Structure formats: structure tokens, C-alpha cells
């Protein structure tokens, strides 16, 4: 086990270290791609092997990292079922992205560097996943942030990329600081940052032992602060603005980091912190997730940049996951994380394939631009009047009718779209999204909580919108007539290194992954000791509605329900009475979600395929709303115009203060000392001190001048003195 986990972590790290060392010696590594990819595949295989070895009762493997008197910070791994599933997801997606990149990034001047960064990212992400303590998680957390920074800014010659990477790092850092403060609170309270029991009791045990049945404010605050980290990393409102900008990075990076793994780390963290969440912090998380889901979805409707649509879709889906965890549906949240990782990675890689097709056209167009400016666009005729920032090869308005040109890409992307839209039963996305909706509704019914009803409605609407804009993407890209004939002609199917990963991911978008989760004993949600149902909660009568259960056991659904029931069983100790099995909530949710998804797809079909409805007309009619969506709710304007400007202004102020006031005081004191104080002292000095000195000097000078005459140079004078002296001496001795 230790060996396996060591290989999983060290393989990608070694791949990066080789690159770094060779780079320092000013020698590139020509086969970095192979090295990194094999390291990743090795990690993937080890993860699979680890899957069979998971201990039902995991114990963290820790070592002492820092010992300070009575306090010890340890570092270690905690391997439970969720960890292993995450390991498999990360290593698998990462391996596929590595393979895909070998085609996509081919010919880039910094090709080896790209793979080195991917390796470093994979290491950091895996480290984050397996860490058993907050400090370790934080370390991995920041390291993935660094890699994200490096990879978003991979084509740093583009100013937009340079801006985007900085924005990403800073925005997430704001959240991270919140997380750090949360860690400080927990540390101050518990004197440890370990989550699980090792040599000493971990935070979770200690939280369990906290007295006080009420909603502990400080614990809620700590939970929310830690969640702040997740808000930053998982691009939740209000710190979501960096993620769409992060699309400046190469598309495989978007697929791996900004869709499948890193952004999901926030969800993973929140899930990890599940036991310390209190009723109110859970609610905050749920609301943030819900709002994010709907806000991002609405923005996605009006985007034309294929990658931005996917980015907002990612934000929206991450909101769903947060909502699930906030609503207590631990398994649902993580389940959606997994399914989303696969289908969203697929969507991104698919879009990458499309971009690559057009990109090939570009490189054909002007060969001299092949170096690092491969995504740069200098073809101004293609720039739309609206979104001048959209590169033409990513603009959906330039696409259309690609399904015949790129059949593999089309099919795989269609599968992923069906999955994310929640088309029932044969796509994994349906199950995971349905579980979230069901979980929220269940909590709402169970607690009779207006908050959760609202959240359920929000989520439902967001799900519908998701179906709408995803199909909009498909219709605009692959159906219809080519909008840009020149580009269309150049488009071609991608090489096999790119299509194979797409096919693998497409396979994973079917409910095969469900079996990972809905093994009855495999994943168990941890206990939440500080979640309490509100007073007005209605304890529903035992309502095992077996009759409504779909017998789709082959898809793993019955296990799903059983697992969720297990979770409820834990909750029941504190909240509502146990209602094992299936509540009507899930059935209601399922039916509603099918309806909204169908409605969304239908609308999309009418708008963008059949053209029965005009998108332009609608947007004109609802101009203010459209503007709001188009301008992304003015978050960026607010941040750039207010927060950033304020900070910069403040820093200038401080610097001016420093330069003029503080230093001014110092120099002023200096000047005053010199001019006023020193004028007096100077007077004193000149007249008295210096006067004395000068007087002494003068007297000496005068005496010297006089005595100097003795030195006449005339020997006779000397003789006078000598003889006079002799006489005098003898006289003195004779007389006295």
C-alpha cells in the first residue's frame, strides 16, 4: 500500500524533476512527453491496484513533519474509498490528457515544458487527494494553484494569457487565505491539523467530542472559511471569474485542470470537511453552490466562445456539487464530481479537437506563425463585432456542420452532452444529477425547510438551462451549414492520439462508473455531528416507497439508493427519524429533472436547429437580461473597477505616504535637526565648541609662528641657545 501510494506520487514528481534538472543545465528533455505520460500511466495502474487493497477501516499513514515542543505537525496519507476513487479519476483523466496533448501540443516550442508542468500538476493534485491533514491539503492546494498558474500562462506571450494566469492565482489566493484563517481557527481550538486519528486524536474525533448541542458559531465560521478555499478553487460565486479567463491556457489544460480535477478539488475538500460542517455552514455552502449553478448557467447561454461555454458550464456543475454537499448529500456530490470529471474532460478535449482542426488551418495559412503564436489570430475579418476577445478558431459562429468532417469528435461530444444534460437512464450524468436534486428535495421535505425548497427549484432550473446551452453548443458546432466555408474546408478529423482519449472518456460517460460508487459497503458518508434539523422539521412518516423504485439494478441504481439511505441513517441519530430506503423525493426529483432536461433540449432544438425561434429576437426583447448575462453579471467590471483599482490606489497611497510622510518625517527630522536644531548647535558649535577648537588652533598657530622663529636656520642662534642653556644649567646647579 505504501509502495503503491509512493509510486503514484513519485512517478509524476520524478518526471517533473528530470525536466527541471535538465532545464537548469540548459538542456531540454526531448522525450519529456513519453516520460510524463508513462509516469502518469504507472500512477494510474497503481491506483487501480490500490483500489483492491483498500482497507474498510482506513488508518492514516503519518510521519511527524515538524515538532515544536508540545505541538506536532504530521504529514501523511489517508486512503479510503473516496480517496481511491479520486486517485483513479485523476490519474485516468490525467493519462488521457497526456496522450491527447501529444497530438494537440505537437510542434509547440515549449512542448517538453508543457508535459513537465502537467506532471507537476498531477503530483500536486494526487498529494492533495491523499493527504490526511489540512496542512498537507493546503500544500497540495497551493501547488495545484501554481501549476494552474503556470499552465494558464503557458502561452505567456499573449497578454490575455498573462493576465488570466495572474487573475487565476490571485483570485484563488483570496479564497485560500480564507481557508488558512479557517485552519488557524481549527488549530487554535484543537492544537492539531490532522483530520483523522493517528497517534493523537484528529480534528474529526475532537469535533465529535465537542460539547454543546447548539449551532456553534465559531465552528460554522471555521467551516465557512475553509469553504472559502473551495470557493476560490472551484470557482464558486463570487470568486468564479478566473475560471472562464483560464481558458487562455491550452485546451488539454482546461480539460484536466479547469474541468476534471483541480476545480473539483474544492468539492473534494468540502466533502472532506463534511464532519465539521454545521447546519448554518452547510446552508451557506448550499446557497453558494445553488447560486453559482444558476448564475453560471445563465451566463453560458449567451457565450459564443466554445471554451467559455464549457467553462461556465463547469462552474455551474461545480455549483451543483457544492449544493449537494451543502444539502448533506455527500455521496451525490462526489458522484457528480466523478461523472462530471469524465464527461467534462471529454467535452473539453472534444472542443480541443475542433480547435485543433481549425488551428491546423491556421498553421497552414501562414507557416511563419507556427512558433508560439499558434492560437493567436491575426485574421481580423473573422472577429465578430460583439466579442472581439474570442479567437476565431474558438468562435462557434464560425463553426457548423462539422459532424461529417469530424465524426469521432462529434459522436463523443454528443455522448458527453447527453450525459451533462441529464438525458435519462443510459448516461451517467443523469444519475448523478438526479441524485443531487433528489438529495436536496429530500432534505427540504425532511426538514420542511424553505431554503432547501428554493435551492431545489434553482437547481432544477439550472439543470434545464444546462441542457439548453449544451445542445446549443452541439447544434451550432456540428449541425447546420458551415458558416465559414474557408475554415470548414480546412477542418479535418484529429489524429488517433487525440481521438482515442475521446473514445475512452465517452465510454466512461455511460453509467459504468456508477459501480464504483454504489457498492453497498464501499462509500460511506461520514457522520455530521453538528447538523441539526430545524425545530419546525416535520418528521415524515416512514415512507419506504419501494413501489416507485425503478428496477434498474444493472445500472447500479438500487445500490445508489441504498447508499444514500445509509447516509440518512446516520443523520437520523440527530435529525429526523430514520427512514431507510427510498423517499418519494427521489422519484419526484427524477421526474422533474427529466422534464426540464427535455424542455431545455427542445428549446435548443427549436432555436438553433430548426430555427423556429429566433435567438436574436428573444435577446432584443429581453435586452436588460441579455446584457446582464452577456456581461457576466458585471463581476469582472466590479472587481477590476472597484477592488483592483482600490487596492492599487491604496498601495499608491501607502507608497506615497511612505515616501512623503514617513520618509518625509525622517528627512524632515533630519532637516530640522540640520537647520533649526543644527542652527543653534551650529552656532554653539561654531562659536563655542568650534571657537574653543579654533582658539586653541590659533594660539597654537601663533605660538608655533613665534617658536618657529627659533628655527632660524642660522646656526649662530642655535649656538646662542645651546651655550646660554649650558650656562644656565650650570648656574642653576651651582646656585641651587
Amino acid at each position, binding site marked *: 500500500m505504501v509502495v503503491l501510494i509512493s509510486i503514484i506520487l513519485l512517478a509524476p514528481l520524478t518526471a517533473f524533476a528530470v525536466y527541471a534538472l535538465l532545464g537548469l543545465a540548459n538542456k531540454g528533455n526531448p522525450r519529456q512527453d513519453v516520460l510524463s505520460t508513462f509516469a502518469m500511466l504507472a500512477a494510474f495502474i497503481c491506483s487501480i491496484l490500490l483500489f483492491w487493497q483498500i482497507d474498510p477501516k482506513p488508518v492514516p499513514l503519518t510521519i511527524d513533519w515538524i515538532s515544536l515542543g508540545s505541538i506536532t505537525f504530521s504529514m501523511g496519507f489517508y486512503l479510503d474509498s473516496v480517496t481511491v476513487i479520486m486517485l483513479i479519476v485523476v490519474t485516468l483523466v490525467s493519462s488521457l490528457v497526456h496522450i491527447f496533448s501529444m497530438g494537440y501540443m505537437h510542434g509547440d516550442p515549449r512542448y517538453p515544458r508543457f508535459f513537465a508542468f502537467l506532471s507537476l500538476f498531477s503530483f500536486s493534485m494526487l498529494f492533495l487527494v491523499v493527504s490526511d491533514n489540512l496542512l498537507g491539503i493546503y500544500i497540495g492546494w497551493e501547488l495545484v494553484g501554481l501549476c494552474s498558474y503556470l499552465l494558464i500562462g503557458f502561452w505567456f506571450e499573449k497578454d490575455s494569457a498573462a493576465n488570466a494566469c495572474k487573475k487565476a492565482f490571485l483570485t484563488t489566493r483570496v479564497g485560500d487565505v480564507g481557508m488558512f484563517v479557517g485552519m488557524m481557527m481549527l488549530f487554535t481550538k484543537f492544537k492539531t491539523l490532522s483530520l483523522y486519528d493517528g497517534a493523537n486524536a484528529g480534528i474529526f474525533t475532537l469535533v465529535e467530542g465537542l460539547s454543546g448541542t447548539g449551532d456553534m458559531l465559531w465552528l460554522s465560521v471555521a467551516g465557512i472559511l475553509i469553504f472559502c478555499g473551495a470557493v476560490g478553487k472551484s470557482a464558486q460565486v463570487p470568486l468564479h471569474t478566473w475560471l472562464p479567463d483560464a481558458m487562455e491556457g491550452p485546451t488539454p489544460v482546461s480539460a484536466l485542470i479547469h474541468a476534471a480535477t483541480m476545480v473539483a478539488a474544492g468539492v473534494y475538500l468540502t466533502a472532506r470537511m463534511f464532519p465539521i460542517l454545521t447546519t448554518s455552514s452547510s446552508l451557506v455552502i448550499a446557497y453558494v453552490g445553488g447560486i453559482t449553478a444558476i448564475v453560471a448557467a445563465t451566463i453560458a447561454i449567451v457565450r459564443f466562445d466554445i471554451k467559455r461555454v464549457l467553462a461556465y458550464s463547469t462552474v455551474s456543475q461545480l455549483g451543483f456539487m457544492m449544493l449537494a454537499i451543502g444539502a448533506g448529500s455527500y455521496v451525490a456530490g462526489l458522484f457528480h464530481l466523478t461523472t462530471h470529471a469524465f464527461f467534462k474532460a471529454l467535452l473539453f478535449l472534444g472542443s480541443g479537437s475542433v480547435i485543433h482542426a481549425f488551428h491546423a488551418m491556421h498553421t497552414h495559412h501562414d507557416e511563419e506563425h507556427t512558433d508560439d503564436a499558434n492560437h493567436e489570430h491575426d485574421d481580423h475579418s473573422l472577429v465578430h463585432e460583439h466579442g472581439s476577445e474570442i479567437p476565431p478558431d474558438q468562435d462557434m459562429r464560425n463553426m457548423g456542420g462539422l459532424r461529417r468532417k469530424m465524426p469521432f469528435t462529434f459522436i463523443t461530444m454528443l455522448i458527453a452532452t447527453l450525459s451533462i444534460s441529464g438525458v435519462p437512464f443510459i448516461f451517467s450524468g443523469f444519475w448523478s444529477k438526479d441524485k443531487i436534486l433528489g438529495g436536496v428535495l429530500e432534505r427540504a421535505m425532511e426538514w420542511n425547510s424553505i431554503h432547501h425548497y428554493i435551492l431545489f427549484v434553482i437547481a432544477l432550473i439550472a439543470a434545464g438551462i444546462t441542457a439548453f446551452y449544451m445542445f446549443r453548443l452541439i447544434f451550432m458546432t456540428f449541425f447546420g451549414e458551415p458558416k465559414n466555408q474557408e475554415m470548414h474546408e480546412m477542418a479535418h478529423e484529429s489524429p488517433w492520439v487525440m481521438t482515442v482519449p475521446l473514445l475512452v472518456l465517452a465510454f466512461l460517460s455511460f453509467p459504468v462508473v456508477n459501480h464504483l460508487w454504489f457498492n453497498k459497503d464501499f462509500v460511506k458518508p461520514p457522520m455530521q455531528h453538528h447538523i441539526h434539523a430545524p425545530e419546525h422539521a416535520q418528521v415524515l412518516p416512514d415512507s419506504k416507497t419501494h413501489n416507485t423504485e425503478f428496477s434498474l439494478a444493472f445500472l447500479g441504481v438500487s445500490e445508489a439508493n441504498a447508499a444514500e439511505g445509509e447516509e440518512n441513517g446516520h443523520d437520523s441519530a440527530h435529525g429526523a427519524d430514520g427512514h431507510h430506503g427510498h423517499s418519494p423525493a427521489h422519484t419526484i426529483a427524477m421526474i422533474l429533472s427529466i422534464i426540464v432536461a427535455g424542455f431545455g433540449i427542445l428549446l435548443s432544438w427549436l432555436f438553433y436547429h430548426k430555427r423556429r425561434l429566433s435567438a436574436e429576437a428573444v435577446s432584443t426583447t429581453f435586452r436588460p437580461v441579455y446584457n446582464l448575462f452577456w456581461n457576466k453579471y458585471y463581476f469582472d467590471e466590479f472587481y477590476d473597477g472597484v477592488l483592483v483599482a482600490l487596492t492599487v490606489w491604496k498601495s499608491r497611497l501607502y507608497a506615497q505616504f511612505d515616501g512623503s510622510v514617513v520618509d518625509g518625517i525622517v528627512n524632515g527630522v533630519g532637516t530640522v535637526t540640520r537647520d533649526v536644531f543644527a542652527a543653534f548647535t551650529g552656532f554653539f558649535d561654531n562659536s563655542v565648541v568650534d571657537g574653543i577648537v579654533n582658539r586653541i588652533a590659533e594660539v597654537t598657530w601663533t605660538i608655533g609662528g613665534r617658536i618657529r622663529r627659533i628655527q632660524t636656520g642660522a646656526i649662530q642662534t642655535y649656538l*646662542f641657545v645651546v651655550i646660554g642653556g649650558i*650656562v644656565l644649567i650650570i648656574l642653576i646647579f651651582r646656585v641651587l
Partner: protein
Amino acid sequence: MEITLKTLIFYGFALMTIGSAFAVVTVRNIVHAAFALMVTLFGVAGLYVFLQADFLAATQVIVYVGGILVLILFGVMMTSGRLQMRIHIERGQLILGGGITLALLMLLLTVIANTPKWKNLSDDGTVFVPTTSRIGKLILNEAFLLPFEIASVLLLVALIGAALISRKEIRD
């Protein structure tokens, strides 16, 4: 002490010496001074005779009068060009010098007068023995051979040095 011829001659020599020496230091003309010095040197030679130092007296006359004094006269000639060399004496310097000299003289005289050991030492009744042979033996045979050699070397050095210094193109 009755006045004999001998004493008269002695006082004569003494007066001659002191008087001429006084003239040496007082006369304005340097050539006159040189001649006065010659008289002094003769006087001293006479005193040597009274002290039964016949060889020394002869040496004094030969070396001083025949050598040094001629040398001095040469010096006077070469430095002044014309033999008109008025010695200029400043008044203040004269007074100061005179004072100091007087004080010195008084001091010496006091010492001479007050030293009891030196009182009443008379040379009466001693038989004169010529000193030349003894001096020759002493210098060339006995105790003073080394100083004699050193003195001869010194003379040589002085001669060469004098010749060197007085050369015209000394700096070349």
C-alpha cells in the same frame, strides 16, 4: 710670588695671548683678525714652553701658524675676492653674545677659583726634560699608536673630503 724675569715673561705671553685673542674677536677687518690670530697662536706656543712642552710649542707654531692660518687666509681671499671684508656685527647680537660670554667666563672663573684640588699647584723646582723623544716613543711605540693611525686616517679623509666638497662640478 716675587717678580722674576720668568714671571714677567710669562705675564707678557699671557697678555699677548689674551690681548691678541681679544683683537681677533673684535677687529672689523678679517685680515687683521687673521694676523691677530697668528699672534695668539704664538702666545699659546709660548705658554706651552712655560709648561715644558717644547715639542708641542714647535708643533703649534708649525701647524697652526704655518698651516691653518695660511689656510684661513686662503679662505678669506677666495670668498671675498677683494681683501676688503668688513665684518658686520649687529648690536643686539653683540650684546647678547657678550652677555652670554661674560656669564660663561664668570662661571669658568668661579669654578677655577673654587675648586680646592687645583689650588696651589705649582711647577716650581721641576727639571725640564725634553719631551720630543718621549712623545715619539709614546706615539709610535706604546699607548697611542692606534689613535695616531686613526688620526692619520682622519686627516686623509678630511683632505679628500675637503677636496671633494670644494670641487666645482660637485653635483655631476
